[in-house]
C-alpha cells in the first residue's frame, strides 16, 4: 500500500518506536525508507558566528550518531535506510521534505524533544499531522 515512507529521527524514545514501526512496514510492504532529522536548536540572533558553529557541530555529531543507529537497526531487518539532516523549524522542514520526496506515509513518535515552546504551541507531531501532504502515522 505504501511505497515511500519517511520516518522522523530525533533520538528520543518516541522516535525509536516510530523507527521500529517504519522498518516493520517497509519490510512488509517493500517500501523505500527515508529518515529525516532536523536541527532546530541552533541559536537565533547570535553574537558570534562561533556560537552558531559550535551548536551546529554538536547537533551534527548528535544526529550522525542517531542516524547511524537507525541505519544499523534498519539494516538488521534487511531495509536500506537513506538519511537526511535539515536545519530549521522541524515541522515545516519535515512537511516540505515529505512533499519534495513524494512520500506517501510519514511516521513519527508522539513525543520527541519538543522544548518549552511545545507546551504552549503544540508539539511537532501536532503540526505535522495538521499540515502533512500524505498519511501520517503517530506512534505511541
Amino acid at each position: 500500500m505504501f511505497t515511500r515512507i519517511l520516518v522522523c529521527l530525533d533520538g528520543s524514545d518516541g522516535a525509536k518506536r516510530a523507527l521500529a514501526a517504519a522498518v516493520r512496514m517497509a519490510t512488509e510492504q517493500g517500501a523505500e525508507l527515508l529518515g529525516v532529522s532536523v536541527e532546530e536548536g541552533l541559536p537565533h540572533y547570535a553574537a558570534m558566528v562561533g556560537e552558531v558553529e559550535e551548536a551546529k557541530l554538536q547537533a551534527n555529531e548528535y544526529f550522525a550518531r542517531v542516524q547511524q543507529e537507525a541505519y544499523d537497526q534498519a539494516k538488521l531487518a534487511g531495509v536500506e535506510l537513506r538519511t537526511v539532516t535539515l536545519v530549521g523549524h522541524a515541522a515545516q522542514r519535515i512537511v516540505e521534505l515529505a512533499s519534495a520526496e513524494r512520500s506517501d506515509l510519514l511516521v513519527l513518535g508522539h513525543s520527541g524533544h519538543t522544548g518549552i515552546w511545545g507546551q504552549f504551541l503544540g508539539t511537532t507531531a501536532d503540526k505535522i499531522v495538521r499540515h502533512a501532504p500524505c498519511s501520517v502515522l503517530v506512534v505511541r
Partner: protein
Amino acid sequence: MCPRGEALAEAMDNQYTIAAIWMGLAFVAAMLAGWTGISVSVLEILVGVAAGNFLHLGTNTWIVFLAGFGSVLLTFLAGAEIDPSVLRRRWRETFSIGAIAFFLPFLGVMAFAYFVAGWKFHQAEIAGIALSTTSVAVVYAVMVETGFNDTDLGKVILAACFINDLGTVLALGLLFANFNWYLLAFVAATAAVLPVAPRLTRWVIANTKGRISEPEVKFVFLMMLFLGGLATAGGSEAILPAYLLGMVLAGVFMKERVLVQRMRTTAFSILTPFYFIRAGTLVSLPAMIAGLALILAFLGMKVVTKFIGVAPLTVAFGIPRREGMYTTLLMCTGLTFGSISALFGLTHGVIDQRQYTILVTTVVLSAFVPTLIAQQFFKPDLAAHIAEDATRREAIPEATD
C-alpha cells in the same frame, strides 16, 4: 536597615559573592537559551536588564575589566571568523556593499540624531556608529537555517558584513582618539605586529602544541592586550586592534580549530557573560518606555539608510529582486558591535544612560525585526541557487573554494 541586615549586607559584599551573583545570572541566561533557542548573548542582555532594573545590580572595577576584556575577545573572534578567500574572490561586491552599508547608515543616523533628535555632535556620532553595524552572526544563523551559508550569494553577504563591521570598528577607534604620542606608538606597534602576527602565531603553535599550559592561547591574548593597551593609552579603543588582529589571524584560525574552540570556551564561559550582562544592567526601563518613539525612529532610519545604500547595489551586481531584498534586510541587522559602540559612548561619558538605553534597545530590535521580515517574505529559492552555483563552478573551475 537594621543592624543585623547591615551586618549581613557587609558579609555578603565580597568579591566571591558578587562573582557568584553574576555567574548565577549567566547560568540563568544559558538555561533560558537552551529552552528558547534564542542566543545566550541576547538573553544575557535581557537578564542584565532585569537585574539592573529590579535587583539594582551594580558593578565594580574588576567586573568592568572582565566585561571590557569580553568585548575585546568577542571582537577578536569576530575578526578571526572572516573567510579571506571570499574577500579576494568577490572583492568588488563585498567591499562596495560592505562600505556603503556602513557609510550611509552612519551618516544618516548621525544626521537624524543631530538635527532631529537634538543630540550633541559626538553623541550623534556614537548613534551613527552604533547603528551602522551589521551583525555577521545574526546573518550567519539565518543563512545556516535557510541553507544559504554554502552558496555564493551567502558568502558574499557574509563577507560584506565583515567589511561593514570593519568600518564601524575603524570609526569607533579613530573618531574618539586623542592624536598624541601614545596614538602614534599604537599605530607604529600595530603596523609592526600585524604583518608578522600570523607567522609568529604559527611558530608558537608548532613549537608548543599539546602543552597543558596553553601557551598559544596566552600568546594571542598577549598580542591582543598589548595592542589594546596602547590603543587605550592613545584614547582609541581596544576593540580596533583586536578586530584587525583577528582579521590577519583568520587564515591561521581556519586551520587551528582546537585553538579557536579553546578561545571560544574562555570567551563564553567567563568573559562575554560579564560583557553582555553589564550591557543589560545599564539599560533603564523607564528611559526605554519614555523613548519608545525615538527607538522606533532610529530603527526606521537604520533600515531606510541601509536600503538606500545596499538595495541599488544589489541591482547593479545583477542580484535578482527577491535575493536583493533578502540581502538588504540581512544587512540591516545588528547586535554585538552596536552594543559595544553604545557602551563605549556611555563609559567614556559621551552619551548618558537615556541615550544608551535608546541605542541598545534599537540595536537589539535590529537583530530581530529585519531577520523576521527577510525570512518570512523574501527567502530566496535555495535549490535554484545551489544549481546556479554548480553551473558557475563547472564553467569557471578556478572559482571553486
